[in-house]
């Protein structure tokens, strides 16, 4: 896409996006309060929700813009951009956010959006992979999720060993850990809606990631959130992109099945 064209398209998207977003968010709210499975969105206070539903106010869009810019930028020895292979992201990437992680036969692991982006960079672009939590990787992840907003999450466990990885994630979820000896379930299964000091616990669903957290003053990945929850209970966290967190991410996609993709969301 040419510069000027992109500007026009972006302005058009924005004008359209605003009303579409409000409608989408109404749908998210409905989906997330009428079923047993609820998005973190439905536990947030109205100021935070409003910030998320307005693309102009939503600070995550600084990163979405970075992602969109990178989409058309040639990088690496193959002389390609994402766009060279995938064309218009709004068409070709619309189902990615709601269906990942998927099985990667090459690594024999579940592959999340971040890993997929870096696989394309390494193999198809011959470019250097982006680091977890870099503006580029957060931006591209946010951009790809944003074009699939509102789609219900449905991750298939049919391929490869996805089933077994999801089981591992489930074990992780129920395992007590850290000096405070708590499992994810103690907070997010037994206490959603309850205050833990100044924070209202949610179900700890993953449909909003990457998330702009007011506390971080930055967009952050799901694995950053996992590390935060581990740190809070004085447990040793795992590395970004680790097998443990990939298993957890796979399992949590099942727990949150049918929640709409919200990324990039805003949370306290």
């Amino acid at each position, binding site marked *: 896409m040419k510069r000027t064209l992109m500007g026009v398209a972006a302005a058009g998207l924005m004008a359209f996006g605003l009303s579409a977003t409000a409608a989408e968010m109404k749908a998210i709210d409905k989906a997330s309060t009428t079923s047993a499975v609820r998005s973190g969105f439905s536990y947030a206070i109205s100021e935070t929700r409003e910030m998320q539903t307005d693309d102009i106010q939503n600070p995550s869009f600084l990163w979405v813009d970075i992602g969109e810019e990178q989409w058309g930028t040639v990088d690496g020895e193959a002389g390609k951009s994402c766009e060279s292979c995938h064309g218009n992201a709004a068409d070709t990437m619309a189902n990615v956010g709601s269906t990942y992680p998927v099985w990667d036969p090459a690594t024999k692991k579940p592959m999340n959006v971040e890993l997929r982006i870096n696989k394309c960079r390494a193999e198809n672009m011959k470019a250097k992979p982006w680091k977890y939590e870099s503006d580029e990787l957060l931006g591209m992840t946010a951009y790809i999720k944003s074009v699939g907003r509102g789609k219900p999450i449905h991750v298939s466990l049919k391929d490869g060993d996805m089933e077994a990885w999801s089981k591992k994630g489930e074990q992780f979820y129920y395992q007590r*850990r*850290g*000096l405070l*000896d708590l499992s994810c379930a103690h907070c997010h299964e037994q206490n959603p809606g309850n*205050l833990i*000091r100044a924070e209202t616990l949610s179900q700890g669903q993953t449909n909003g990631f990457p998330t702009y957290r007011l506390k971080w003053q930055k967009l952050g990945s799901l694995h950053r959130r996992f590390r935060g929850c581990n740190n809070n209970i*004085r*447990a*040793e966290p795992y590395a970004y992109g680790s097998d443990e967190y990939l298993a957890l991410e796979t399992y949590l996609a099942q727990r949150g099945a049918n929640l709409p993709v919200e990324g990039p969301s805003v949370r306290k």
Partner: protein
Amino acid sequence: MKVRSIFGAALGIALMAAAGTQVQAAGLVKYTVVEHPSIPESLTKGDPVRGRAAVINRQKGNCLACHSIPEIPEEQFHGEVGPVLDDVGSRMSAGEIRMRIVDPKVINPETAMPSFYKLEGLHRVAKKWQGKTILSAQEVEDVVAYMLTLKGSYSN
């Protein structure tokens, strides 16, 4: 209530004895759990004023994370994960409160409440917290002393 000192040398193991279960771990004050369950004998002498501070302190008890304590109206946010602690001092004995703080899993294996004076049986404790209990024996007794002052009817 004293358990014969024959068992004293064993480290990190809970030993059943007629009078109760003696618990001793390296570096920790040993204590005895009797049926109820309860730890009737204090680990050391406690101070309720220091206990109140430890209950509030996020690096220490941080009990307010999970409990609302009406006697502490000056702290803005009180948690809702555990029951309101307003009259435990009139409902529970010192031994029962001590048990609840030292190792509440003896009372309820499923509880969300952390064991504030326990080192064993934990998984993946962060490196900087390894070998440390959440509260010291002194702090446990301070919190017990403070809990005993909670007898209900607070205006806030």
